[in-house]
């Protein structure tokens, strides 16, 4: 009797699926062919997904490992790609969200360990031959962006879920404590039903409490910063203390690292910069959001050279594909500056512009915000007209993003009118869509807040709540003293009941308080446009205020109209 040989793990896989895995692995680890990978990523993967896995997960990494030689790094990328698909077709539970963190942690640990060891080798002067068994990694720019974009998206979703779950549980717990206190008794004896949050909510809280490290904000930020350092070099302030700190030597070192580790790391570095900018904006740190874009706008940074197909000509980097040019300026052979490279991926371009503009708006840099939004709005308007954007895989999101951009331009055009920054075609659309709202504001009604609520991102609170407030057993007080203590505790707790919207409300409050001041200046500006000179008393009368109040308004106008503005050719972050 023959021994039973278990069938290979991939025995049940469809043939096209096996081919897809094999080819994708080949393009990312060996051949580095962008055109082939583009077809696999943008066409073959969606086709196979809709045909075989429309609402179910893709096969496990173990099932497909024979198609890629058990390459752990590739399998981690495969896991992320397929988990991303599952996230879009199902509503993730708390365990799914935790599992998502594990996927990214595994992938990023592997990627960063690899590139950081290469960087250490370069710094130590080791030669490329020492790493002969390392094939390097190539990922399409779109693929690199999607990984990091989804990472921040899942982090954002996790924070919102965690905050909302805790807030819901806290409201139920504390409102029941209040009613017990009002009854004058301790928890056990008094009247009134004691409410606890639903079992589903309690279970979620327990899972969150057991996995406090999942999606920890310091880890998320650390990963993004490490990708930026690996793919774009360390920031100047950190390297200033080292011996070999000149920009030229830093650029050479970066080129060497990318040539050995793979062009994917350069892509990941630049898109990590965009992702970091977005994350900082969601956290309300607008200064950091703009600073994060430094590598993208670094005019001295090495260019990005697309990979050269095998046998397609001299390879300046000595590898199988392209790499990083040394030196600034726009080069030939399709070499791109970091900004042009980021702009070549439409969702990255839109994300960068949108979050930078929000940051400018909140930091009262209205002209910079207008300029950035005007450029992206023009690009999107043309893209819709020519149909280019509708053919893009992310086209379903572009319409909504365009609407938000127009709403922001409506605010900015009203608060800081400029005639020379935004194309007339775009401003016409802004006026058509938002004239009613803006007329309301002119007549003295509140309107900026509604526009901002529509256009702003979903701000998040990243801190880990104190789960013990809900999960710890309630103290059963007895008698008057216990009841009084329970009442005092519940009162303090009531004062601190999270609403789940705290982060969001804080940013909206900051915005509206600034807009209240801007509203008072608008009427004054309209009169000042009509006159080359006017008596202060007369202007005060037009504005229905006393002369002393008008002086204050004039000073405020002078103060508010002076704003930091970016000079041409200087980084967006300054």
């Amino acid at each position, binding site marked *: 009797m023959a021994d039973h040989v278990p069938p290979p793990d991939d025995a049940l896989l469809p043939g096209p699926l096996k081919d897809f895995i094999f080819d994708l692995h080949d393009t990312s680890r060996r051949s580095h062919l962008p055109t082939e990978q583009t077809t696999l990523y943008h066409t073959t993967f969606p086709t196979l997904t809709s045909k075989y896995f429309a609402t179910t997960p893709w096969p496990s990494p173990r099932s497909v490992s024979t198609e890629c030689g058990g390459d752990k790094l590739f399998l981690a990328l495969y896991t992320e790609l397929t988990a991303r698909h599952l996230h879009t077709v199902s509503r993730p539970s708390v365990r799914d969200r935790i599992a998502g963190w594990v996927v990214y942690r595994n992938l990023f640990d592997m990627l960063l360990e690899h590139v950081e060891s290469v960087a250490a080798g370069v710094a130590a002067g080791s030669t490329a031959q020492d790493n002969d068994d390392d094939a390097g990694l190539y990922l399409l720019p779109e693929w690199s962006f999607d990984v990091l974009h989804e990472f921040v998206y899942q982090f954002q979703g996790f924070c919102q879920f965690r905050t909302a779950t805790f807030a819901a549980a806290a409201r139920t717990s504390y409102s029941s404590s209040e009613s017990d206190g009002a009854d004058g008794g301790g928890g056990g004896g008094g009247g009134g039903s004691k409410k606890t949050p639903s079992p589903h909510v309690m279970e979620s809280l327990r899972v969150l409490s057991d996995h406090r490290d999942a999606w920890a*904000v*310091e880890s998320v*930020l*650390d990963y993004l*910063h490490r990708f930026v350092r690996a793919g774009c070099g*360390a*920031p100047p*302030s*950190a390297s200033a*203390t080292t011996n070999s700190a000149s920009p030229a030597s830093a650029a050479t070192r970066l080129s060497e690292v990318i040539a050995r580790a793979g062009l994917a790391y350069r892509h990941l570095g630049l898109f990590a910069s965009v992702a970091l900018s977005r994350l900082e904006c969601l*956290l*309300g*740190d*607008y*200064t*950091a959001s703009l600073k994060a874009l430094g590598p993208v706008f670094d005019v001295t940074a090495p260019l990005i050279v697309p990979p050269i197909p095998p046998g397609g000509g001299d390879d300046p980097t000595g590898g199988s594909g392209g790499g990083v040019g040394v030196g600034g300026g726009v080069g030939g052979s399709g070499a791109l500056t970091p900004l042009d490279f980021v702009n070549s991926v439409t969702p990255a371009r839109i994300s960068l512009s949108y979050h930078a503009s929000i940051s400018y708006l*909140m*930091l*009262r840099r209205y002209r910079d915000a207008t300029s950035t939004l005007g450029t992206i709005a023009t690009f999107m308007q043309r893209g819709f007209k020519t149909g280019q954007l509708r053919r893009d895989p992310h086209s379903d999101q572009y319409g909504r993003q365009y609407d938000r951009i127009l709403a922001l331009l409506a605010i900015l055009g009203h608060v800081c009118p400029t005639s020379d920054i935004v194309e007339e075609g775009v401003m016409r659309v802004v006026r058509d869509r938002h004239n009613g709202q803006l007329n309301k504001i002119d007549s003295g009604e509140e309107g900026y807040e509604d526009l901002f609520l529509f256009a702003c991102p979903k701000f998040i*609170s*990243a*801190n880990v709540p*104190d789960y013990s407030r809900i999960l710890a057993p309630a103290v059963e007080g007895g008698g008057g003293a216990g009841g009084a203590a329970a009442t005092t505790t519940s009162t303090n707790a009531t*004062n*601190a009941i999270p609403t789940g919207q*705290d982060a969001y*409300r*804080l*940013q909206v*409050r*900051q915005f509206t*308080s*600034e807009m209240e*001041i801007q509203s008072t200046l608008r009427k004054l500006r309209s009169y000042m446009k009509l006159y*080359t*000179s006017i008596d202060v008393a007369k202007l005060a009368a037009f504005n229905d205020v006393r002369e002393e109040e008008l*002086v*204050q*308004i*004039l*000073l*405020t106008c*002078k*103060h*508010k109209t*002076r704003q*930091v503005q970016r000079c041409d050719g200087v980084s967006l972050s300054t």
Partner: protein
Amino acid sequence: MATPSHADIINILAKSSADPTTVTQLESYVRAQVDSLYGPAALTTSEPSSPYNFDANRALTKLYQFFPHLADESCTALILLLSLLEYPSTDFTALACLVPERVQEREPCATLSRCSDLLEQSHFSTFWVTFRELIINDSASEELKMAAASPAAVRKVRGSILNLLGLTYKVAPIGTVLSALDVKDEAALKEYVNGDDIAKKIVENVDGDKVVFVSREENTKKSRVFKEAVGLDAIAAALAKGCHTATAAGQ
């Protein structure tokens, strides 16, 4: 623990973005910045050893946001005070987006927020009254009170307000200037201007009931005149031409 130097802080900020173990060092640096307002270093004219560092203060505020159990509200108040003194920069605005609402609504941060609002709306005389409330605020730490009362803090804000006046006015009534700067009378104003390098560059002279500011682009009437009105004869000529063309077309 020894106060970290400015270079130490630069290195901390470059290495780690959200490391809770850096909280103590960053707090120490905040206190050093405040100390430079009223400590022995405030009496010297040399550069302070712990200069104001917005990025360090912002990093600490974010760490408080991420790790609320580490948050020290008295330190938050010191950070807000330091940023308030940087008016008219948007440092306070940027930090206010990171400090939780419940902290901003409690003293002494509530008074600091009111001070910022008053500066933003140019209610300078009310600002000084509110600012001095910090010195007697029960919720304020001794460091905050001393910093708010320090001549260095007053000088910083006064200089910024004077600069705004200098951008807005070429000649201002002395009463407006005295109340905006919280200065008693003409003699005190002259003493302040003569003793302050920044004020000397802004104020040309104090002359009786007027303060004359140094001419700058912002406070000088522009010489170029834009002809905004169109003369009737110009319109009449165009109308006549238009009518003539229409008549010829109709025939």
